[in-house]
């Protein structure tokens, strides 16, 4: 019998274990190494992606400006120092700028050459000048030097995205215009400054005037609506299903459908939003309120599923402790189970919110893809959101939008990182040990 000789048998066992040890450790080593390699590869790709976007985005944070001497002639503008804001709005600042350019380059004649000259500054420059005057009407009648936005082509040339030493036929800026720019450059009138416009204005057809603020505000409004709708509903649903619902077929059916809902393609929710909220309930088009409702439908299953597993993970001993003291079911749930599950619920909520923040498809269907210049002031104003802004800019032919696209992606990623940090902070704050 195998156990007949115990001593022999023990030697055998030791030997057998020894023999197998090498193989076991080798397996462990291989597993560890492959895990490490996987992480390294994932990390490498992340670094490549982020650094590529960052490098592409950096020029977007710099703006080229042309400093010109402005003659705010009261007679020509038809204004006085006491003119009202409305009068200033109607005044022709474009002419002032053109006069300044003509004064700088008196040698420019001919229709085409003049067109080149005037297109050195951005179309938005006149509004820039108007705003300066509106803020301080005392300037009317005086001369001052103003740094005007350069046109996006000038901007690209200065930043080097348009190369100067390629043949003229392959260059977007022709020789004549180039000579004008170089004259300004050698005069020290061209400067590169931090691009505040990018953070303070809405979208524009002109890359040098386009900003992210409209999309940021749109995203914030949309996410707030989503959070306010989906968090209470999802948490209430999760608590009911986990703690109160009877075990029957109907509840099983509901559960299956919640899980199915999580797998529905998001564009379907967009169609639903279009059909129900806009066409049937006549809610405004392109508005964050509709976007928020649609996205909360989409995030509901995510939060419900995460909340349910968080509630399920609360140790039953905690429930028994409360019930044993004579707490009612409701008291047990809200005094003990819910606070204990809160970290998990919050994590699920933030994941859902991050998902909603990055969602594009359903919002396309409800008109949030429109070109909107104004910064939305409320949840019913037309707006767009960050990922759609990325999509819109990526689709634009102007060179200047290339860098803007990457910059918008950076802002979006920044948002996501911020939300994740809030999630980690909240989780640590509410986490309790037992």
């Amino acid at each position: 019998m195998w156990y007949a000789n115990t001593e022999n048998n023990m030697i055998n066992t030791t030997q057998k274990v020894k023999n197998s040890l090498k193989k076991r450790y080798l397996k462990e080593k291989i597993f560890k190494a492959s895990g490490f390699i996987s992480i390294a590869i994932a990390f490498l790709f992340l670094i490549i992606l982020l650094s590529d976007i960052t490098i592409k985005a950096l020029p977007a944070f710099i703006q080229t400006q042309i400093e010109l001497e402005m003659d705010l002639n009261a007679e020509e503008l038809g204004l006085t120092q006491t003119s009202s804001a409305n009068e200033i709005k109607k005044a022709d600042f474009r002419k002032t700028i053109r006069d300044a350019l003509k004064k700088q380059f008196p040698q420019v004649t001919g229709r085409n050459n003049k067109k080149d000259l005037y297109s050195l500054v951005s179309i938005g420059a006149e509004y820039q000048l108007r705003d300066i005057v509106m803020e301080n009407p005392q300037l009317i009648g005086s001369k001052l030097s103003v740094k005007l936005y350069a046109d996006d082509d000038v901007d690209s040339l200065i930043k080097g995205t348009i190369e100067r030493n390629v043949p003229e036929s392959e260059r977007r800026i022709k020789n004549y215009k180039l000579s004008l720019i170089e004259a300004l450059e050698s005069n020290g009138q061209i400067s590169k400054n931090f691009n505040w416009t990018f953070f303070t204005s809405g979208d524009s057809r002109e890359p040098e005037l386009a900003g992210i603020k409209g999309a940021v505000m749109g995203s914030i409004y949309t996410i707030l609506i989503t959070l306010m709708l989906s968090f209470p509903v999802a948490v209430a649903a999760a608590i009911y299903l986990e703690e109160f619902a009877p075990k029957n077929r109907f509840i099983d059916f509901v559960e299956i459908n919640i899980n199915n809902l999580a797998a529905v393609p998001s564009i379907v929710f967009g169609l639903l939003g279009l059909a129900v909220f806009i066409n049937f309930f006549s809610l405004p088009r392109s508005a964050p309120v509709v976007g928020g409702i649609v996205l909360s439908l989409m995030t509901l299953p995510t939060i419900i599923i995460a909340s349910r597993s968080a509630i399920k993970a609360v140790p039953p001993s905690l429930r028994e402790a409360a019930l044993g003291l004579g707490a009612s079911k409701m008291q047990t749930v809200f005094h003990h189970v819910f606070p204990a599950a809160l970290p998990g619920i919050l994590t699920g909520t933030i994941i859902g919110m991050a998902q909603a923040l990055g969602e594009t498809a359903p919002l396309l269907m409800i008109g949030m893809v429109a070109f909107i210049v104004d910064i939305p002031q409320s949840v019913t104003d037309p707006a767009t959101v960050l990922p759609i802004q990325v999509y819109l800019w990526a689709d634009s032919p102007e060179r200047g939008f290339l860098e803007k696209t990457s910059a918008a992606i950076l802002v979006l990623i920044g948002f996501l990182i911020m939300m994740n940090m809030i999630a980690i902070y909240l989780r640590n704050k509410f986490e309790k040990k037992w």
Partner: protein
Amino acid sequence: MNTQKMTNNVIKERSIEQILEEHTHTVGKPFCENPKIRAKGVDVFYDDNQAIHDVSLDIDRNEVIALIGPSGCGKSTFLRCLNRMNDTIDICRVSGELLLDSYNIYAKNQDPVLLRARVGMVFQKPNPFPKSIYENVAYGPKIHGLTNNKAELDYLVEDSLTKAGLFNEVKDRLDAPGTSLSGGQQQRLCIARTISIQPEVILMDEPASALDPIATAKIEELINDLRQNYTIVIVTHSMQQAARVSQRTAYFHLGKLIEVGETDKIFTNPEHELTERYITGRFG
């Protein structure tokens, strides 16, 4: 050698199944005059599995009764019937009659919340709330509205902790989390929490099984003190513990109540063959 001896023993004695089959009624003294709790013909089912068969048992006022028996014998299930903790298990069904004083515990109009305020429970594993020591004890009185102001509540918390023999150890750190205490202290905190709502009966489900001998000794001492004011039903795996803390002992086996009697008698001169085998350690 050993194996052979054991086999011989089994052959010599009648098998447990045989004895159980012959067992028809509880031996000893399961009944008493004017009991605090009276169980009559209680059956408990989990779905189709019968966990408790026709148990009738009286629990006297201000006594400590120990429920002993091998694992899976239904002693915990029976205990959890007494404050309807079994309600939380969907598949659990209880039939028969259970009376607290003269109120039917399982009557339709009996509110489990009210019942559990009268019949407190201490669990096997210490389960303080993840809150401060003070909050742990104050929670019960708060939800039942037992005190009118903060001073009364403070007094009640101190009194409960004192009765649980814990106050001197924690008086300087009532704000510390209850989970920061040692296992034995946590269990005494749970006892303080239970007596803070002044129940009439305290059920204890192996309260010392997760504790070291010193902490166990403290809990046992505490049980002895609490007997003055409360009726205590304690489930235990340790026969020495049953012998030390209880006046009466009930022996369960496979869902049947085999024998009930004075603790001294059960441990020195049991009437039933199964009881004798269990307390002499031949199975369990």
